[in-house]
């Protein structure tokens, strides 16, 4: 398989999906019963804001195509003076509208809360991947033994737990030992950068652990299945015949082959991880984009909902493409 062809195919898929998401987002908030405009402009906004938004998004213009304007002026490009294309143009400039409740541009709100979420996801994923993979490998190796049954049961159980329930339980259990929420102890003065990092770490620990438990089940099962398939391959027999110990065979031969699917799964599971993150941030009052979305739900803050959703979708699509890129680099069978 040609590497360049492979990447081009994946790139065009990602771009098409992105386009579909963008148009879907546009569609969702405009073609609905009642006045669609109320999804973008709200009576809660100040009059100047309302007027400005109307201008920016061209809310008095036709939704899909401006055929009337095109016919009048005789120019084709006038047809693109419609809400859809204005929306696309705005999007490319990072204009996501303004929040109904916080009187700030959506982009600003997102930017302020992006880093905590990134830290949470990275910490949670790393922990989940490491533990999930190790236990999955172990379970596949010691198949049908007590260890295997135990890890499998643990993994399946973790996989079946509702994220929010797990979070609340941990919250109750950790009372007094770890901070109950937030990202940093507010109003605290730190003597050094290191102390600040420790403080953040203490706040991130519980949410990240919850996420890790949630993800660990999925990774464990996948690594276990993939390893089981690998261990039935002929080259494992060859490795063993050469006199390598079981441990060596696992590390030098099985691991890389079994880990290849992991790369793609990490990206695919990101969507699932984001769903969990929303719930976790809500429970731990963790100031990330997940809890931002939750607040927006409660307040019917449609621009924020739209904006965060776009961000998450773009993130996952991008991550998937990166995963495909990494896979192409790692697997020597996909070569030029």
């Amino acid at each position, binding site marked *: 398989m040609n590497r360049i062809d492979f990447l081009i195919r994946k790139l065009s898929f990602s771009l098409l999906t992105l386009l579909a998401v963008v148009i879907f987002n546009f569609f969702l908030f405009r073609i609905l019963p009642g006045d669609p405009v109320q999804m973008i402009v709200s009576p809660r906004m100040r009059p100047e804001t309302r007027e400005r938004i109307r201008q920016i998004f061209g809310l008095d213009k036709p939704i899909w195509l401006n055929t009337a304007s095109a016919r009048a002026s005789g120019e084709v490009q006038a047809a693109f003076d419609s809400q859809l294309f204005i929306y696309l143009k705005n999007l490319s400039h990072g204009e996501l509208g303004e929040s109904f409740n916080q009187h700030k541009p959506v982009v600003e709100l997102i930017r302020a809360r992006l880093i905590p979420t990134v830290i949470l996801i990275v910490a949670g994923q790393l922990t989940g991947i490491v533990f999930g993979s190790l236990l999955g490998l172990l379970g596949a190796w010691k*198949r049908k033994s007590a260890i295997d049954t135990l890890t499998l049961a643990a993994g399946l159980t973790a996989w079946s737990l509702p994220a929010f329930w797990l979070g609340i339980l941990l919250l109750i259990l950790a009372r007094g030992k770890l901070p109950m929420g937030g990202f940093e102890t507010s109003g605290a003065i730190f003597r050094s950068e290191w102390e600040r990092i420790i403080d953040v770490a203490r706040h991130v620990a519980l949410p990240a652990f919850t996420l890790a438990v949630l993800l660990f089940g999925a990774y464990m099962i996948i690594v276990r299945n993939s390893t089981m398939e690998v261990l*039935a391959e002929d*080259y494992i027999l*060859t490795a*063993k015949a050469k006199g*390598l110990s079981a441990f060596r065979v696992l590390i030098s031969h099985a691991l*890389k082959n079994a880990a290849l699917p992991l790369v793609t799964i990490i990206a695919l599971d990101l969507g699932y991880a984001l769903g969990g993150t929303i719930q976790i941030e809500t429970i731990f009052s963790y100031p990330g984009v997940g809890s931002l979305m939750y607040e927006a739900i409660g307040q019917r803050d449609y621009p924020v909902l739209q904006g965060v959703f776009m961000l998450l979708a773009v993130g996952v699509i991008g991550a998937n493409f990166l995963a495909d890129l990494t896979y192409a680099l790692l697997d*020597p*069978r996909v070569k030029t």
Partner: protein
Amino acid sequence: MVLLDVKGLTVEFHTPSGIFRAVEDLSFNLEAGDSLGLVGESGCGKTTAMLAVMRLLPEPGRIVAGQVMFEGIDLLSLNPAEMRRYRWQKISMVFQGAMNALNPVRTVGAQIAESIALHKTVPGEQIRDEVSRLLDLVGISPSRAGQYPHQYSGGMRQRAMIAMALACRPQIVIADEPTTALDVMIQAQILDLLQDLQRQLGLSFIMVTHDLGVVAEVCNHVLVMYGGRLAELGDSDTIYNMPQHPYTQRLLRAFPDIDNPKAELSSIQGSPPALNALPPGCRFQPRCHMAIDECSKAIPGNYLVGESHIVSCIRVMEKTV
């Protein structure tokens, strides 16, 4: 000098659907410099027996009886760590279908080097040269050591496997269907290579195959298996010219004879026995053209007919009577 002495080897597979006895009471020995051909139809237990010798059976396999004496030590009595030292260094194996026998994500050179480094047959700095030497030995350009298995042709992969099998200078090489799935030209090349190597390096080997033609060319002893048991064992001349076991006779008749190209090829009716429901008597009895009543009552013993010619059939006794 006897290198390998296998006595009464019995292997079973314990699956949820029942116990399958793949090998029963197999005994033979291999002397230094010998080349033994292990023949039989698919499923007769020849590969399983060889895997058992190296203790490489897949999951539900169990060695339930027998001894594998190598230079006086019973390999089956060693603990796993000790056994690992014997593997590859004393006995190595070239596997069937080398297509997948090499790890696709590691270079060929690295995989050969791995065995050398593991058994420390050569000091560290010289490993690279040794790998080149081995590749050269089997007719692969040493510059290809850094390539991946999928970049090799089928025949090259098989040759690379042979090079790898020789990496630690073993005393015995077991080749499991080394030429199956290769086209005839490559087959010939591989066989020539094996014979060359045997001459050059003084190897002893066991060639597992269902192809009698290959055995005739390369081996000086032949062991015929049927239904997991030994049917006949002897040197090539005897087996080819004076086969005594009915199965061997039919097997030879099923192969085209270059001296008699117009002779009709006969096939053996029926099918091999189910390994989880073995008949009480001789395994071949249901398909045997020489079967008599006694055959289905008890398993025939191993009868020594002439010098080092063993036949597992009660009817050989009549010949001498």
